[in-house]
């Protein structure tokens, strides 16, 4: 597939004795936003972690920008321009908001304009600039986690459940931010449970089930096909009848 920034082919991951991914295959297009959907335990988080090098792929190939990154160490993968927002947010609670962002900006002090752009969307970060991040609320931590990933331009963002525990108004800001990022400087791969959010943002979609990608395609088509959604996303009311 041409124009794919990230592509996974036959990726298998084992954690300890458990075989979690069984040959995952999908692409993230340059400048696009791919939604990774699927029910609990389908392997979405494991997929993100495997791309990031936090779990080792036991088989298969992960290519980023034409380069095989399957066996690179996590820091080297990050340095190619991939940022990761884990589901747990992994905020450094003991560090202030400012310090969290200073660390995330690898190439020097954070850019002023970019900071203002972030503050405009996540106002709380400005307000609690010098507060230890551990004292932020769940939603504010989520903002910080996303801000940390976009404090400098990155080529690919891996985001795990950005809307978990967020109030609707902030979700709207999050949607804004991701819209502006995609197509411009970054491509995104977002794991999401909230389908309303997913359909508003996603260009394409990959749905996982039992450690495999069960469906790949265009978001518009997927959003229109409610039978497919129900079959894949876990309610399955009309199956097995």
């Amino acid at each position, binding site marked *: 597939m041409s124009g794919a920034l990230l592509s996974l082919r036959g990726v298998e991951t084992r954690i300890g004795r458990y075989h979690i991914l069984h040959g995952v295959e999908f692409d993230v297009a340059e400048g696009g936003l791919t939604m990774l959907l699927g029910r609990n335990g389908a392997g979405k988080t494991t997929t993100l972690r495997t791309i*990031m090098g*936090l779990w080792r792929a036991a088989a298969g190939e992960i290519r980023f920008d034409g380069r095989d990154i399957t066996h690179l*160490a*996590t*820091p080297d993968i*990050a*340095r190619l321009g991939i*940022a*990761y927002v*884990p589901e*747990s947010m*992994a905020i*450094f*609670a*003991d*560090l202030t908001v400012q*310090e*969290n962002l*200073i*660390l*995330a900006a*690898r190439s020097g002090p954070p850019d002023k304009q970019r900071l203002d752009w972030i503050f405009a969307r996540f106002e709380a970060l400005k307000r609690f600039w010098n*507060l*230890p991040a*551990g*004292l932020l609320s769940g939603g504010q931590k989520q903002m910080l986690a996303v801000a*940390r990933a976009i404090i400098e331009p990155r080529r690919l963002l891996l985001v795990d459940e950005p809307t978990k525990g967020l109030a609707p108004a902030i979700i709207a800001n999050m949607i804004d931010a991701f819209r502006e990022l995609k197509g411009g400087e970054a491509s995104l791969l977002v794991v999401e449970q909230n389908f309303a959010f997913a359909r508003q943002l996603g260009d394409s979609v990959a749905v996982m089930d039992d450690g495999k990608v069960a469906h790949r395609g265009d978001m518009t088509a997927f959003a229109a096909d409610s039978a497919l959604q129900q079959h894949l996303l876990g309610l399955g009311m009309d199956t097995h009848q």
Partner: protein
Amino acid sequence: MKRDWIPWLLIPVLAIAALPLIGSPASWVTLTVAGLAMGLMIFVMASGLTLTFGLMDVLNFGHGAFIAVGAFVAASVMLAMAPWMTADSIWLNLAAIVPAVLAAMVVSGVLGLGFERVIVRPVYGQHLKQILVTTGGLIVAEQLLKVIWGPDQITLSRPTALRGAFLLGDVAIEKYRVLAVVVGLAVFAALALTLNRTRLGLLIRAGVENGEMVEALGYRIRRLFVGVFVVGSALAGLGGAMWGLYQETVTAAIGAQVAVLVFIVIIIGGLGSVGGCFVGALLVGLTANYIGFLAPKVALGSNILLMALVLLWRPQGLYPVAKR
């Protein structure tokens, strides 16, 4: 967030509480300075250990080996420069001490690098094996010290300028203790500044909390860890050199002996916290000196008692580290 200052308050509270028990203000000042000096020397040795634990969940039971090596290397250099040590010039004295201490730090640091590779690296994440293998490392290191320096203890005398005491009225303060306090505070200040004001320090603090995320931000935590391990070993060497001069004798067992105090201090402080380690070290130093004066027979039990009291109050130590 409100800073938790209560543990810091324990230090003056302890000192003031000891005053009426000791009675004589002159003795009290002497003991307090002695306690601070002892505490700060232990802090210098313990700071690296607590950080390596925080960063990689590695506890090195062989840490004492670096302390002992530092003491031996410094002793060798100083003995070789004996004429300058005994000269009646503070500058010549310093010209002997400074290279001795630097040599101690370099050798301990290099040894730390080797120790990390051979002993610690293969057993990451396996606590039981880690305890066993680092203890094994201590056994071997202690024997090697005897191979190199011989089995007998080395007697070491302090340089002329650091003998004796300052007299302020009827209060006597040993000069060497003042130096130990100054060096200890300098190390603490340097560590505190590094941790709070530099990018490297931010990385270390972040790594103690969540090493995986630090990696995902593009930093190599392994390198950071090895760096901290080496610096911690070098500091242990520095502390060993200071302790050797303090005791004026050096034996191969010095490491294992002091390591016990070091462990008590980092437990009290909360494993992984430099601030807690500092407070813990001063509490241990002061308690040991006060009790040593008031009831010499139970002096060493006093550290255990202190540890028990602190853990009853805060079971995870004074400043527990927030983990993931």
